[in-house]
Structures are given as structure tokens and as C-alpha cells.
């Protein structure tokens, strides 16, 4: 099983985590209906490095993982709001 490093709790097997999908920012509320529908439904599905939500279940920690969806390698993980820190 793959390992993932929770920025608070350290390296754990993937079974301790819940995948929360890509980290996305919603368009402003005054966007067009089409823009909103695209935000709600569409995803950037092509492989590459993405920021994703992950949840460490035993501790209840949400964090962001920068992961290459092609190779499944995780570059780094951080708490939201602490992007700058390594």
C-alpha cells in the first residue's frame, strides 16, 4: 500500500486516508451559469501535478498533497494556508 505523509502526523499507509478530490477554487458567484456548471462538473482530468485534498482519518486532518497523477509520486504535502512552508 502506498505511503502518504500527513503534515501533522507523518508517514502512513494510504488506508488511513480519504481522498478528497482536486483542490479547486470556485468562480465568483456572479459567474455565468455555464461557468458554474463547468466548475461543478468538469475536472482537469489530464495527468500531471495536481493539488489534492487528503484527509488523515485517525486524526481528522485535512491537508493538501501535491501529487503527480501519472506517476503517483507525491512532491509535498502541506496544511491549507501553509503552502509556503515545506
Amino acid at each position, binding site marked *: *500500500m502506498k505511503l502518504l505523509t500527513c503534515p501533522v*502526523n507523518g508517514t502512513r499507509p494510504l488506508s488511513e486516508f480519504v481522498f478528497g478530490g482536486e483542490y479547486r477554487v470556485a468562480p465568483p458567484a456572479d459567474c455565468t451559469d455555464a461557468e458554474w456548471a463547468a466548475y461543478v462538473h468538469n475536472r482537469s482530468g489530464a495527468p500531471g501535478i495536481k493539488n489534492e485534498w487528503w484527509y*488523515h482519518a485517525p486524526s481528522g*486532518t485535512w491537508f493538501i498533497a501535491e501529487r503527480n497523477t501519472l506517476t503517483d509520486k507525491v512532491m509535498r504535502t502541506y496544511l491549507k494556508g501553509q503552502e509556503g512552508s515545506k
Partner: protein
Amino acid sequence: MQTDKFITPIAHAFSAGLGSWGVINGMQVVTQFVDKDVEEIRKELLGIADASFLGKFGVKGRHAAQWLQDQGVDIPTQSNSWVADADGNLVLRLGGSEFLIEDAPDGNLCEKLLKADAKRAGVYLVPHVEASLVLSGSAVQELLVEVCSIDLTRAALGTQEVIMTQFAGVSVVLIHQDLEGEARYRVWCDSSYGPYLWEFMAGIASEHSGGPIGVGNYFSL
């Protein structure tokens, strides 16, 4: 089973009539499962005991650390670490801003804290009624490697580290204690999972000639 107000969450795992029940700290617990000598051997090899009767207190929030210090509680400075005070009360820092405090068998810190006024922004009480377990004995690693996928050998653990992980598919909080030369693993899990986790681990313990130890024998109360 005598009716008192508090019952250990592990109770459902104890088949009726098994062992002798008693009230400790106001909670109904099994004070002894089998013959004391047998429990002593289990303790040496691989024992599992129910510590749910120990008083617990929790608080979280961005000012929780300060509030605890205001109450005169020594808190661990690092995230995910723990300290024991001179009386043996445990203070666990769960992540950065949440604390779990568990009394020593004869402690009453939690009662004091419960009475203190925690009502302020950034300090939130967290009720703690977890199943609280103790694992110990020379073969304890044999049990740990079956229920947990991370390395819990002493060499792999940081000093005073609090670990939040999963045991047999259940989220737990875990610490390792050295008490008078005896290695002890303390495990807390949601009370509703308590009976399951107890049964699973007690089963493995008995495969290694260990097993449950009554509260009375374990804590020399």
C-alpha cells in the same frame, strides 16, 4: 452485573458471568478475569487491560494550550507528543491545538479541570468517553504487527510521541510508556468500537498465551 451509573464501554465484549465485576472510580469494570497467577503470566507475556475507568478530560481550540497552562497544567510543547506529571496524569497533545488528559489511577486532575470555567472563544471542551486500553508484555510486538501497519517498535517511536493511527481498522490514539522497566502501549479508541477492538486484540493475545487482565490486577488498586 450490578447497576451503577457508569459502565466501561468494553462491557459488551465481556460475556455475562465472565470474571468478577467491581466498581472502580465509579465505573463498573472487570476487576479480574481469571486466576490471579494466570493474569500475572499474561502480564509478563502479552496482557490487555481496560483502563476506561480513568478520568478523562479534553479541550481544543486555538487558546486551549494557554487555558490549560492557566489552570496550572504542564503541556507538551510539541504537536503529537505527551507528558506525564509527577502524579502520573497524562497530558496528550493531539495535533497542535487539542489536548486529551487522563488521570493516573489515583489522580483527580480531570475532575478539577471539568469544574474550571473553560467558557471562552478559542477554548472548546471535548467530552472524552473513549475505550482506554493497555497493552504490555514481552510479546506485545506480536500483537502490534497484526493490528497496525506502521512500525511501533520502540526504536521507531519518537520520544514522548503521540501517534494517531489505525488498529484493526479502527482509529486510535496511541502512546508508548516505560513504567518501571515495563513497556506499555496505551490505546484510546471511540467507545463504540471498544468491544470490537478488545475482542480482536484479546484473541491475538491469547494465541500468544497472553490475554485479558482484570483492572484490579493490572493497576494494583
